[in-house]
């Protein structure tokens, strides 16, 4: 019984971590969807958010709000800047050159952040109002994580509704599935792209600000987040918010329960998930970028 509750708590941690990966992964999927690039600096954006939180937040809810606002602004700016730095490569830029640009940014930013914040991981303080634990049956659970689960779930619902129902969401889907046709029917695809990149960047940095108490800033965290979020995109299929959410929750469980019970098998579980999804989906040139749900 005791072991069972331990698993239940670990599983709840997995939900929180999964939702964190969903927020980052949804941003990555969005950027992949509109630009057909793999943003190798996506983990860097998360790390920026986590450092913003570690520096600005702590104490009051207001400080967290300020950190979040700064983070979202930085993320939107960073995402939008991505379209400018990739523009010189041309519209038909090779995947290799695009990857090199985002890698270069990631390396320089990582070097700068290590120089500014040191090589040791930083502690992030939770606002006093959200400190402490709440009793769930017989086990106590940190309040902040529950709040995080709630906020991230809300983000997921809002994103889904926005992509499915709103006019900008429909313009986004049209731009992803057929840019030329969308442009011909009067959609300013350039603006849609920039907006999507800004939202994608804001999601990554926002996840960093709110997720810092779960996965704090430190050298190497950018790579961890990058790898896990792109596994989420591969398994979930870019373009489908519910798919991304399911994949994120799965990876979250593997990364918590899987790592606790069988650490050497966890990589195999993720390999297996990718294999199953890729086999079931059949061969595609670019996941399902052309088929947004």
């Amino acid at each position, binding site marked *: 019984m005791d072991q069972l509750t331990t698993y239940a708590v670990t599983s709840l941690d997995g939900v929180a971590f999964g939702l964190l990966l969903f927020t980052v992964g949804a941003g990555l999927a969005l950027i992949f969807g509109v630009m*057909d690039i793999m943003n190798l600096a996506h983990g860097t954006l998360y790390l920026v958010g986590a450092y913003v939180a570690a520096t600005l937040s702590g104490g009051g809810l207001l400080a967290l709000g300020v950190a979040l606002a700064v983070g979202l602004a930085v993320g939107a700016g960073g995402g939008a800047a991505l379209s400018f730095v990739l523009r010189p490569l041309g519209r038909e830029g090779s995947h290799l050159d695009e990857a090199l*640009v985002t890698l270069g940014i990631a*390396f320089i930013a990582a070097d700068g952040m290590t120089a500014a914040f040191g090589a040791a991981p930083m502690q992030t303080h939770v606002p006093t109002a959200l400190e402490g634990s709440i009793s769930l049956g017989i086990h106590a659970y940190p309040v902040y994580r529950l709040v995080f689960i709630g906020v991230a779930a809300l983000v997921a619902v809002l994103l889904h509704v926005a992509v499915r129902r709103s006019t900008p969401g429909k313009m986004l889907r049209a731009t992803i599935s057929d840019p030329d046709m969308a442009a011909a029917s009067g959609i300013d695809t350039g603006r849609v792209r920039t907006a999507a990149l800004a939202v994608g960047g804001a999601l990554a940095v926002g996840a960093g600000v709110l997720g810092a108490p779960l996965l704090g800033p430190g050298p190497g965290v950018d790579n961890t987040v990058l790898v896990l979020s*792109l*596994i989420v995109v591969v398994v979930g299929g870019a373009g489908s918010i519910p798919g991304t959410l399911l994949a994120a929750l799965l990876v979250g469980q593997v990364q918590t329960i899987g790592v606790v019970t069988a650490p050497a098998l966890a*990589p195999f579980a993720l*390999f297996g998930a990718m*294999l199953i999804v890729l*086999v079931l989906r059949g061969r595609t040139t670019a996941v399902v970028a052309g088929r947004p749900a």
Partner: protein
Amino acid sequence: MTTTLSRPGVLPAVPVRPLVFAGTVTVCVALPWIVGAYQISLAASALVLGTLAMSTQLLVGVTGLPAFGQAAYFGVGAYTAALLANAGVTAGPVHLVAAASTGAAAALATAPIVLRTRATTFMMVTFAVQSLTATLASKWKPVTNGDDGLHTPAVRPWPGGPALTVNGFTYLYVLAAVLLLGLLMAVLLRSRLGLVLRGNADHEQRMAALGHRVTGELTLGYVAAGAFAGAGGALLIAVNRYVSPADMGFEVAAVTLLAAAIGAGSMTGAVVGAALVVFARDYLGGSTEHGPAFLGILFLLVAYGRPLVKRLRS
């Protein structure tokens, strides 16, 4: 990307390339008598990275698949050689054959996953393969000793030969091995498989329409690239006498892609690219603690320089 290779008509009448190549090889052989011990160890590291860059180039520059994960097979080869060395088998050639075999086997095992994708998704999946393999190396402690890595005895150039403990000799052994691997690669590129892989880079659908079993052929190419990467791993053990999950990590994967990009589709270019990367990271950046920033700048220079160079050529 393959335009520089697929234009045999523009070769100059004077055999400039063979002469330059012969001159470079001569300088490389004479290097231990020219530079100091530290530089020679860097040169050996550059050759090891160069082998991995050749493996990556076979996929990126020749086959048109943006592979980010060759470091995984490199790591598989390195751990194979390290385990052999620790079991008392210290003959370098045995390491090379064994590591190439396990690298190829690992590539064969993962090919069904990665070859279901192309383009950006291919890059994502190969990245995931690299990262998950590195995670496996750090978690599978009974075999890999986790993040502490494996130390090994010195490699011998042939069974019963002298132990390679002096940097200059190690370098010459690695140079000989890399030249042999380069020769094998040259043969592979001129073989039927090499041509078919290039054809797939140019127009995969047409190759399929011509009756080629594209997936099978790409699998062969992927396995060959895995074998080269694995052999590079064996050379890593000869140079470092040590392997840890960091040797197959994100940075290795990233700089390998950079080296291949500098090579712009050519194999010798990839090796030169690897040497440039080691020079920028360890020689320029090594003394400042800002190696990653130097690398980052090199990434941007190459990314923006390549389209420029392409435009100037055409």
